[in-house]
């Protein structure tokens, strides 16, 4: 059984600023990182590998330099890495992206049965959380989002049991394979690559698939296949804060006021 994990290279959003004139992200000089949620997805795939001996493939859609992201997954122990890169894939929204990723997974499945696909719950640049479900829908897989614990994977019985982290509660669910999971940070602690694995991954092969390989209709992918477009990005105006209590002479009272205020505005999830 093959486990496929989808990863994305994203700009380090802590370092992204918005150009006040053009209302676009200033990407220049901003380093790229692996989407943090995806690192937990990779870790879960590797845990399946450790436990059941299944093979793991990492796939990513992006420009040629997104190879670095896949190399990191290789350093952590995935068996195969495929970069989906073609000019016609560019400018894609979540719909077009999930089409390309789903097509790649179908292609992988021609060689080996795909039992589980794992994605991060969302990316930190787009924050839509739509690509994972989009892939599941296109592949007609069971769809389990926001997974924070895998209770059991039964490969021969073809089913999986997980816990989903929802607002204020957990949901324990079971689904038949093949399944797509999107995962949250609480799921695990990603492993740190050993030096030997890092050095090995530097020479490992990252396969590059373009549209000649996937053979998708160019009108259904990339910018042309994307019904959504971003008209404007802006930083929300922040209302001026107000001072609460007297923190110097009555810190406890001030803290209580703050807590009351936060409860009142429902900012504290209990």
């Amino acid at each position, binding site marked *: 059984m093959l486990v496929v994990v989808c990863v994305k290279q994203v700009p380090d959003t802590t*370092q992204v*600023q918005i150009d006040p004139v053009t209302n676009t992200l200033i990407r220049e000089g901003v*380093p790229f990182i692996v989407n943090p949620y995806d690192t937990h997805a990779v870790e879960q795939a590797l845990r399946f590998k450790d436990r059941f001996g299944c093979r793991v493939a990492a796939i990513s859609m992006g420009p040629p330099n997104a190879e670095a992201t896949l190399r990191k997954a290789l350093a952590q122990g995935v068996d195969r890495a495929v970069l989906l890169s073609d000019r016609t894939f560019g400018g894609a929204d979540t719909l077009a992206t999930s089409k390309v990723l789903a097509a790649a997974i179908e292609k992988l499945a021609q060689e080996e049965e795909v039992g589980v696909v794992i994605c991060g719950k969302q990316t930190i640049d787009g924050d839509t959380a739509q690509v994972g479900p989009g892939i599941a829908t296109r592949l007609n897989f069971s769809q389990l989002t926001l997974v924070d614990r895998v209770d059991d994977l039964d490969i021969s019985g073809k089913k999986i049991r997980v816990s989903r982290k929802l607002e204020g509660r957990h949901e324990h669910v079971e689904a038949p394979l093949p399944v797509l999971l999107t995962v949250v940070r609480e799921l695990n*602690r*990603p492993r*740190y*690559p*050993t*030096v030997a694995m890092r*050095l090995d991954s530097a020479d490992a092969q990252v396969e590059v698939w373009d549209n000649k390989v996937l053979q998708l209709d160019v009108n259904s992918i990339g910018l042309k296949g994307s019904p959504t477009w971003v008209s404007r990005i802006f930083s929300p105006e922040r209302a001026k804060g107000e001072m609460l209590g007297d923190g110097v002479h009555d810190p406890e009272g001030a803290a209580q006021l703050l807590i009351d205020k936060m409860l009142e505005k429902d900012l504290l999830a209990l």
Partner: protein
Amino acid sequence: MMPQTAIFTTLLVASLLFFCWSVYRRFSLVLYGQPEQRLDQPGRRLAEMFLYAFAQLRVLKKPFGLNHFVIFWSFMILALANGEFLVNGVFPSVSLALLPDGVHRVLLIAFDVVSLLTLVAIALSFVRRLVVRPPHLDSLYVKGRSPEAFLILSFIALLMLAYFGLHGSLVALGTENDPAAMPISSLVGAGLAAHPSMISTVYVVSWWLHALVLFAFICFLPHSKHMHILTAIPNCYFGALTWPATQPREKFEKGAVYGVGTVERFTWKDLFDSFTCTECGRCQAACPATNTGKPLNPRQIVHAIKTNLLENSHALREGRSGTLPLIGAEGEGTNTEEAIWSCTTCGACMEACPVLIEQMPKIVKMRRHLVETESRFPEELLNLFENMEQRSNPWGIAPGERAKWVSTLPVKPFVAGETEYLLYVGCAGSFDSRAKQVTVALATVLNAAGVSWGILGKDEKCCGDSLRRLGNEYLFEKMALENVELFRERGVTKVITLCPHCLTTLKNDYRQYGLELEVVHQSELIAELIRSGRIKLDKKDGSFGRIAYHDPCYLGRHNDIFDAPRTLVQSATGSAAVEAERTGRNSFCCGAGGGRMWMEEFTGERVNHARVDELLAQKPDTICVACPYCMTMMEDGLKDKGAGQVRVKDVVEVLAEGLLRKNA
């Protein structure tokens, strides 16, 4: 041949053969270690050996060390007497009496006096181990009151008693040829003269006792911790010629092994160190981890290496690794991971060791194995490693915010040829809100003194200190190479650092990458500016009250900077800082070095609490530091101890406020 001579000769030859075989078996194990250059500069090495082994410089740093000094030199002098005894036992016609009378006489006086001194010293040692019982004599596996310790002390005492019995009876018999040169033996002889029937018995018993104890000693020596008699002197010769806090580089290539995961991965010198340790416990008495109830004891690290090596020796001789793990198990001969992660790399253990054993680097070598080969480390470190790799600072703050501290200050970028010094602000000075105040104070002082300086701004990167001390050498090397290239590209030659950790990394570690910089800590530069009159303070600032100074390990012990920060305090306030009980070279760590800054402290007392208590004992109004890590640890410690009225200031802040008052 007389029967006595025949028996003596046989026993002597047997003892010597056993001794040689034992020594060979043990020392041959040392050769399973990895190569390391410790034979260069023989002149300097001889000088070190003289200072530490023969003059016992470190031994004498503790009051009771005098006792050891007496025993050591008595042993050296009595080696002649014992040598004579052994030769004379085989060839009865050969003795020191063949020497010119004057020389012989001096020797006889020396032997007599020194034997008495040794007896006194041994008696004191018994009292110390039985009655005084200093706690640092006990470790988990070796106790101060161990049978081995008492056996050795008894051997020495018996040798001395036998010496006096032997020579006293000779005096009484009238066959000692120069009794006037043997005051103590003569006294014993006079005592024996009252019992003429016993004299010959005392002689025979003393002679055989002396012989048998010597043989037993020879046989036992290589199997006991007393082997230090053989190893301590060469160990001082092989000691590190530069302070060994800077870890060696590793070679990153496919198939290489990183760090030390099995005992034979240590260098031969590491293994030799383990045979040299005589379990004096001085390192454990100095160690901040041991002192606060952590499972780390530097002495036990060394002991574990020895035990592991001996335990696995059979396998090693067959070309395999042994079955007793070096890391991860419980018990003697292995090190727990918690012990390995408890080290603050403060270097107090190395400073304390009388025979120049290097405990701390051994711990870092094992950390390298855990991080680089096993990928096993406390989970807090994962964030640190990722932050360092992705954002080049421990907090993971956006690198673009590095120069935010500048705000409205007149600060220029560093331009080679136009600016003299690069101020390498460092991560704490750039991102930590409290340390940023220190950076601003430093900038103000530098500007007031007219120093030509500039910064790299958002191009500055982390120096990587914590990574190296935590054993993540792979990532450290990556960052070091980036920095070396950046410094070369920008033409940096002179650097001021705010943080002692940056100081040591730029000054000592980057040298391994071929970058020779002139690096000064801010306190050094400012002390020099005061000396040369470029900073003048006439109105003394008394607002800090009584100031206690805490020596940062990486400034003091690791880089020998003790006076400069004190000069700043003295100049700004007109009075000298008060000193904690452990100060200067023997200062006690704040708990944040060696990457401990980024780790939780679950076991025992917190190191910063122990240090804060010690400083509070001096009743200070202000605690002065010269390191951003110490700043955090002291401030947190004071808060926890409910001593919030005591302030923590960097020495440069004290000076800056002194300047402000002057200009006001």
